[in-house]
């Protein structure tokens, strides 16, 4: 069997975090989460909505209905990213410097200041693991990782997936715990490149390799299907064009 690509490993690891979610939604620029959601649904059943996808099976316009479903308790998992993510799970999609006239301005909150509160398992996904991206404190809280008592907060951060590792968020302690490190990387490398404090257990496993049957599914059916919402990704990772969908 050919070498396992990082993308394939992350698809498999992410799918494991989605077990038992009846409805997983993900965004139009999230090919790895999208593929992971498809894999999880295949393995454990459940429904996947991919914003901007035209396949009826996954269709979701990312509009009013998805937000309403989140408030109804009908969305179990979602993915968010951030230009900055800190140790309390605060995410920053707005920029660097003092608001409003920031030194660097990013796009804005999109749905994060709402979905992060309402979707039980929000998986944070960022493939650039650095102290710049993971500072001790974000410059602007586009959406907070934790809420005060009395604020309706069924949702929040569940895990953080990077190019180096997987961290789980402990809501009680309000901090991340290193769960696994990808092959070729080390706990030290993770610590050196993370600007916030997080828990490190005595034994940190390696992020598992997808078993052959999952790998076959990822490289077959799923690679073909994600060519619809994520053509560039399918081409780059699996050499598959949209017509294969």
């Amino acid at each position, binding site marked *: 069997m050919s070498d396992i690509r990082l993308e394939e490993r992350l698809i498999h690891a992410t799918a494991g975090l989605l077990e038992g979610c009846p409805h997983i939604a993900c965004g*139009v*620029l999230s090919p790895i989460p999208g593929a992971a959601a498809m894999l999880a649904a295949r393995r454990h059943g459940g429904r996947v909505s991919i914003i901007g996808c035209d396949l009826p099976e996954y269709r979701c*316009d990312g*509009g*009013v209905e998805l*937000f*309403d479903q989140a*408030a109804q308790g009908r969305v179990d998992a979602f993915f968010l990213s951030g230009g900055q993510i800190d140790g309390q799970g605060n995410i920053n*999609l*707005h*920029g660097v410097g003092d*608001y*409003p*006239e*920031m*030194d*660097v*301005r*990013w*796009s*804005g*909150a*999109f*749905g*994060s*200041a*709402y*979905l*992060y*509160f*309402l979707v039980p398992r929000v998986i944070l996904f960022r493939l650039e693991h650095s102290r710049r991206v993971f500072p001790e404190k974000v410059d*602007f*809280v*586009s*959406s*907070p990782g934790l*809420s*005060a008592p*009395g*604020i*309706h907060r069924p949702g929040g951060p569940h895990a953080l997936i990077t190019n180096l590792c997987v961290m789980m968020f402990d809501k009680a302690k309000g901090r991340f715990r290193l769960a696994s490190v990808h092959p070729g990387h080390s706990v030290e490398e993770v610590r050196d490149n993370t600007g916030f404090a997080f828990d490190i257990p005595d034994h940190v496993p390696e992020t598992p390799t997808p078993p052959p049957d999952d790998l076959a599914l990822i490289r077959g059916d799923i690679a073909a299907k994600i060519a619809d919402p994520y053509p*560039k990704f399918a081409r780059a990772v699996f050499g598959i064009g949209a017509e294969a969908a």
Partner: protein
Amino acid sequence: MTQFLSDPDALAALIPDGAMIAIAKEPLSPVALTRALIRRGARDLHLVTVPTATYVADLMIGAGCLGLVETSGISLGEFGPAPRFTKAVRTGAVRIKDSTCPAVYAALQAGEKGQPFVPIRGLIGSDVFESRDDYLTMPNPYDPSDEIAILPAIRPDFALIHADRADRFGNVHVGARHELKTLAHAARQTIVTVEEIVDGDLREDPAAAPNLIGSIYVAAMAEAPRGAWPLAAPGRYPFDEDHVIAYAKRARDDDAFADYLREQVFGAPARSAAE
């Protein structure tokens, strides 16, 4: 009754400086109408993006049409940041009211229903909420221990909509884009461009009837073939990736952006520029 005008420039003349306009996200964004507003030298407009925007907002900001932009996010999507937007925010050339997508939808729905305000989950504890002096919190009257965010309704002066087709009675077909119905209902007036004005009465077509903006909301309309270009009009033409990639590059530089405006916006009416 709906006025039928010759082209987007005639429509743009109806929208005064300082007006609050609302424009929905891709696909089918009103690009030709936006370019007409730039040609007429519109100033100090308050743009509400529904709920986000790409090229259209960046173009208007760069052309100096906007005094205030109320948005949940502006970027060029997979083609990166929106250069004129990011620069204008950095320099303070445009004021910004940041929001989050469902808050924009909820505030427009409140406008549609004539509700002066609306409660919404989320937001509390974010700097988005802190940055908005018009966002409040109050205890849920049915459970005082439950603190919830309150938003004012949004009733734009003008909803600017580009649609696939309309009939000569002024009924506009929006297909599955029901948020465009909410937008038109919430707005004081709706100004529409369409790819095609069709014969007959769309209300008589059972497939179309549930998915119309009724003419009662539509103040004025013009036919604007390729009126969403370089953005997509599903079933008509695709997203023009080359154009937007070139735009993303030119918009990073003041002079190159000025050239782009001269060439693409002022150089020719939207219609022929699109062909």
